[in-house]
C-alpha cells in the first residue's frame, strides 16, 4: 500500500524512498540484533504489571464500586440471562428437565416455519437440511449454543442499531457524529475488543454478546441510515404537502420504502454476529467456536473440520434465509398482495400449527428431544478430514513445502529480520521517513506517535513480527487481488463464475478459514499468513474488479482503436484509471489481513496474536494481553494512516 500510493509523477520521491530502504538494509547489516527491544513470552514490563494490578483492583471492587454495582453488573446480568434464556429454550437442559424446552424436532420445525413464512419453501427445505446436519455431525447442542448467542446478539443489535440508523438517516448532524465511530468499530480487528470487555463484564456470555454487538451493530446502523436517507424526496414532499407530520411521514413513507434495504442490513448484521460469536469462544462463549478453538489448540484437524463445517452450514442457512426474506419484501407487493389475505393467513396458521405440534412432541418425547445418537456421522467426518489432511500433507508436501519455503525465505524472513532484527530507532526513523514521503506531515506525525506507542506498550518486537507477517500477507493479497480482479473485471464469464464464490467467501466467519489451511500446512506462522490471504482476498478482488469495470467503455474503446495490446490496455489504461479502487483494495486488504494474522496466533503465528490469546488463559499475562490488543489497534491505525475509510458494505450475496 505504501508504494502504491506514491504518485507516479514524482520520480524524485521514488529515489528518496529507494535511498531510505538502502540505508535501512545497510544499517541492518551492521547493527542486526542490537536494540531490538525483545521481550520474552513470560516477561513483563512495569506497564503490564501495572495493568495486572489495576485489573486485580477492579476484580476486588466489582461488587462494591457503585459504577459496577448499579451499571456494569446489571448489563452483565441482563445479557447473561438473555443468552441463558435462549439456551434454555433450544440448547441446554433447563427448568429441571434433562433436555431443553424445545428438542431438535421442535427447533427444526420452528426454523422451517419461520423461514417459510418470511422466505419461501426452498429456503425452508434448506433450513431443515442444514439443521438436521448439525445433529448428524454430532454437534446439535453446540450449534444451538452458537445460534442462541448469535440470535440474542442480533436481537439486541437490531434493537439498538435500527433506531440509531433511523436517527442517523433523519439527522445529518447525528450521522456525521456516528460515521467515524462506526468506521473505527469496523476497522478494529475483531480480536481486540475481547480483552477489555472481559475486564468489565468478565469472561462469559455477556462479554461475548457485547463483543458480537460491537461487530454487528455498524452494518445495521449504516444500512438503515442509508435506506432512510435514500427514500425518494418527491414522495416525501408529496406527503408533507398533504399535511403529514414528520412522524406520519416516517411511519407511512420512510419506513415502508426503506424496508427492503433494512432487511439487507439485517442479513449483514446476522452474518457479522455469527462470525464474531464463533471468535468469542476465546472468552469462553459457548458453542461451535469453542469446539473449533479446542481442536485448533490440540491440532485436531478432524474435529476442527467437523465443527467448521457446521459453522459454514449455519452461515449458509442464515444467509440464504435472510436473503430470501428480503426478496420476499420486494415481490410481496406485486404478487403476494394480489393473492388473498385469507390464503396467506391460512398458510401462516398451518406452518405455525405444524411447528407447534412438532414442538410439543419434542417437549414431551425423548426421541424428538435428543438427536438420535445412532445417526451421528460426525466421527466419520472427523476421520475422513484427518485422513485427507494427512494425505494432502504427505502427497502435496512437495508443492506445499516449496510454496512455504519460497514465501518464508523469499519474503517473510527478510521482512521479519529487517523489521524485528534492526535496532528500534532505525526502524522508527525509516517508518516516519516513509510516512512523511508518502503521506506528508500528517502521516509522519501519526506514524511517529503510533510507533512510540508500540514502544511504550513494551511490545515493540512482537509488533514488528506481526507487522512483517501483515505486510507479507498484504503483498500476496494484492498480487492475487490485482490479477484476479483484472480478470474478473474484464471477463463476464469469469465474473459469473467467481463472484458467487467470493460472495460466499465473504459471508464465512473468519475462524473457519484457519481449519483447512491448518490441514494443509500444519501449525506454523505461514499458516496464519495463508489464512489471512484467503480471508482478505475476496474483498480485494471485488474492489479491483469494480475499479476495472468502472473504467468508461469509451476510453477502453479509444485505446483499442489506437492499437493497444491487451497487456498495454491493462497496464496503461485500466489499472491506472482504477488506481483509486486498487488503493482502496490495498487498504481494506490490510485491515482484513491484520485481523486474521492475529487470529493466527492460535495456530503458531506467535507475536501479538499469541500475547492476546495467552492473556485470556493465563492470569499473570492478562495485562500483557491487553497491551497486545492495544498494540494491534495502534498498528491498524498506523497502517490505515489514520485515514479511516468506510469498509465497503458487504453486498447482498443473493
Amino acid at each position: 500500500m505504501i508504494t502504491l500510493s506514491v504518485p507516479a509523477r514524482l520520480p524524485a520521491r521514488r529515489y528518496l524512498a529507494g535511498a531510505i530502504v538502502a540505508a535501512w538494509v545497510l544499517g541492518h547489516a551492521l547493527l542486526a540484533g542490537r536494540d531490538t527491544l525483545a521481550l520474552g513470552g513470560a516477561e513483563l514490563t512495569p506497564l503490564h504489571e501495572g495493568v495486572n494490578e489495576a485489573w486485580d483492583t477492579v476484580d476486588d471492587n466489582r461488587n462494591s464500586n457503585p459504577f459496577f454495582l448499579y451499571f456494569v453488573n446489571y448489563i452483565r446480568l441482563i445479557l447473561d440471562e438473555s443468552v441463558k434464556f435462549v439456551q434454555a429454550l433450544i440448547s441446554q437442559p433447563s427448568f429441571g428437565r434433562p433436555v431443553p424446552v424445545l428438542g431438535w424436532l421442535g427447533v427444526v420445525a420452528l426454523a422451517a416455519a419461520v423461514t417459510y413464512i418470511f422466505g419461501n419453501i426452498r429456503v425452508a427445505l434448506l433450513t431443515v437440511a442444514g439443521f438436521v446436519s448439525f445433529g448428524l455431525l454430532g454437534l446439535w447442542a453446540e450449534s444451538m449454543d452458537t445460534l442462541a448467542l448469535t440470535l440474542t446478539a442480533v436481537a439486541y443489535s437490531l434493537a439498538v442499531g435500527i433506531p440509531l440508523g433511523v436517527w442517523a438517516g433523519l439527522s445529518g448532524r447525528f450521522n456525521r457524529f456516528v460515521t467515524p465511530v462506526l468506521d473505527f468499530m469496523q476497522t478494529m480487528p475483531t480480536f481486540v475488543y475481547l480483552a477489555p470487555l472481559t475486564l468489565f463484564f468478565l469472561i462469559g456470555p455477556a462479554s461475548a454478546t457485547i463483543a458480537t454487538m460491537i461487530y454487528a451493530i455498524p452494518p445495521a446502523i449504516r444500512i438503515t441510515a442509508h435506506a432512510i436517507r435514500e427514500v425518494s424526496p418527491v414522495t416525501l414532499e408529496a406527503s408533507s404537502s398533504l399535511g403529514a407530520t414528520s412522524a406520519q411521514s416516517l411511519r407511512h413513507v420512510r419506513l415502508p420504502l426503506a424496508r427492503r434495504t433494512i432487511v439487507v442490513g439485517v442479513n449483514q448484521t446476522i452474518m457479522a454476529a455469527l462470525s464474531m460469536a464463533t471468535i468469542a469462544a476465546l472468552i469462553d462463549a459457548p458453542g461451535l467456536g469453542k469446539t473449533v478453538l479446542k481442536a485448533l489448540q490440540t491440532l485436531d484437524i478432524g474435529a476442527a473440520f467437523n465443527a467448521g463445517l457446521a459453522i459454514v452450514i449455519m452461515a449458509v442457512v442464515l444467509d440464504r434465509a435472510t436473503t430470501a426474506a428480503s426478496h420476499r419484501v420486494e415481490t410481496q407487493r406485486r404478487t403476494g398482495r394480489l393473492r388473498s389475505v385469507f390464503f396467506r393467513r391460512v398458510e401462516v396458521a398451518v406452518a405455525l400449527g405444524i411447528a407447534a405440534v412438532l414442538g410439543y412432541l419434542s417437549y414431551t418425547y425423548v426421541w424428538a428431544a435428543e438427536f438420535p445418537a445412532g445417526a451421528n456421522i460426525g466421527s466419520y467426518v472427523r476421520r475422513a478430514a484427518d485422513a485427507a489432511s494427512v494425505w494432502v500433507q504427505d502427497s502435496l508436501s512437495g508443492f506445499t513445502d516449496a510454496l512455504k519455503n519460497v514465501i518464508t525465505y523469499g519474503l517473510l524472513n527478510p521482512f521479519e529480520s529487517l523489521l524485528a532484527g534492526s535496532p528500534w530507532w532505525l526502524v522508527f526513523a525509516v517508518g516516519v521517513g516513509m510516512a512523511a514521503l508518502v503521506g506528508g506531515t500528517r502521516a509522519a506525525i501519526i506514524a511517529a506517535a503510533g510507533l512510540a506507542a508500540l514502544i511504550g506498550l513494551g511490545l515493540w518486537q512482537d509488533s514488528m513480527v506481526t507487522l512483517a507477517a501483515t505486510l507479507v500477507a498484504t503483498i500476496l493479497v494484492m498480487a492475487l487481488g490485482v490479477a484476479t480482479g483484472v480478470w474478473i473485471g474484464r471477463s463476464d464469464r469469469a465474473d459469473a463464475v467467481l463472484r458467487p464464490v467470493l460472495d460466499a467467501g465473504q459471508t464465512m466467519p473468519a475462524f473457519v478459514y484457519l481449519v483447512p489451511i491448518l490441514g494443509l500446512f500444519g501449525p506454523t506462522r505461514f499458516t496464519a499468513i495463508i489464512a489471512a490471504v484467503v480471508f482478505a482476498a475476496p474483498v480485494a478482488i471485488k474492489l479491483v474488479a469494480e475499479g476495472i469495470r468502472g473504467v468508461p467503455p469509451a476510453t477502453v474503446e479509444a485505446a483499442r482503436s489506437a492499437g493497444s495490446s491487451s497487456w498495454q490496455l491493462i497496464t496503461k489504461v485500466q489499472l491506472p484509471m482504477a488506481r483509486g479502487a486498487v488503493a482502496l483494495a490495498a487498504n481494506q486488504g490490510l485491515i482484513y489481513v491484520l485481523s486474521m494474522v492475529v487470529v493466527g496466533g492460535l495456530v503458531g503465528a506467535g507475536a501479538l496474536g499469541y500475547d492476546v490469546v495467552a492473556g485470556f488463559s493465563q492470569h499473570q499475562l492478562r495485562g500483557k494481553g491487553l497491551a497486545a490488543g492495544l498494540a494491534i489497534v495502534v498498528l491498524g491505525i498506523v497502517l490505515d494512516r489514520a485515514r479511516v475509510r468506510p469498509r465497503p458494505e458487504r453486498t447482498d450475496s443473493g
Partner: protein
Amino acid sequence: MKDQPVLDVRGLWKVFGPKPERAVGSTLSRQELKERTGCVAAVRDVSFTVRPGEVFVVMGLSGSGKSTLVRCLTRLVEPTAGEILFDGADIRQADERRLRELRRHRLAMVFQHFGLLPHRCVLDNVAYGLEIRGSARPERYKRAREVLELVGLTGFENSYPDQLSGGMQQRVGLARALAVDPDLLLFDEPFSALDPLIRREMQNEIIRLHHEVGKTMVFITHDLSEALKLGDRILIMRDGALVQMGTPDEVVGAPADDYVRDFVSDVPRSHVLTLRWIMREALPDEPLDGPELAPDLVIREAVHTVLSADRPVRVVREGELLGVVTSAEILEMIAR
C-alpha cells in the same frame, strides 16, 4: 363580493444560500448576486392575485423559479420575504399546526413525478391525505372511490402504482389531491413527464374537471401551448422575476419584452388573439351593415365570416360598435 382573491401574493422573495435576507431587495442580476454573495435568488419580488375559480398559470424556462414559487405558496419551501394572503390570512404567519391544517384541508398539490407511495395500492394512495388527517377507514375509502371515479380510474383501486402507465399514475396523483376537497389546487408541471398524446388527454381532463368541480388552480408549466390552453391568466417568470402577467391574448398580442416575444413567436396568433386585437375604426365612407361579431371571438373562428362577407364585419359589444374588421386585417394577421 365575488372578487375577493383566493390568493394574494405580495413582494415574495425566495433566496437560497448563506444569509439569504441580505439578498432581499437587491437589484443585481441573478448571476452577479451569485458571484457576490453565493446566494441564488430563485424568486424575486413576485406579486400576483388569484381569483376564485380561476386557472392561473405560471410559466417560464427551466430554472426560472416556478417550482420554488409554487412551493413557497404552501411553505414546502420557506419564503425569505413577502406576504402570501390566503383568504385574507398570511400563510407565512401560520404556526406549525395551522399550516398543517391548511395543507390537510385547503390546499393540495400535484407533482411532476407523481410522488405516489409504491407500497400502497391506488385506493390507499388516494385515501392517504384523508388518512393522515384522521378520517375513519370506511369514510375515506368512500371518498377515495368517488374521486377515482371522477378521474376515470374506477376498477384500478387495488392496483399498485408501478402497474399503471404514467398518465394513470398522474390521475392517481390528481385524485389524491382532489380527495381532500381543497379550495386551491397547485400543479407543478404535472404533465411534463408524460408523452405528448397522454399529455393532451390529461389537459382536457383538467379542463373537464375544472368545469365539473370549479376549483381554483395554480398551474405551473414550461409549455406555452399548455399555458394558453388552460390558463385564464398567465404569469411569465424569468430568472425568478415576474416579466409579464395577463390573459393569453394579452401575452401573445402584446409581449412585454423580447424574452416573452421569443416565447410566443411560434404561437399561431390567430388561434389565440381575438378580434379586439385587429379591429380598427370604421372609415367614414364604409358601409356599416355587415355581419356582427363579438370582440372576444378568437380570430380563427371569425375567418370564415369575415372573408365571405362582402362588406366590413362590425365588432359589437352590448350594442356598442367598437370597430370593424375586413379581409385585409385577417390576411395581414395570418400572413405574419
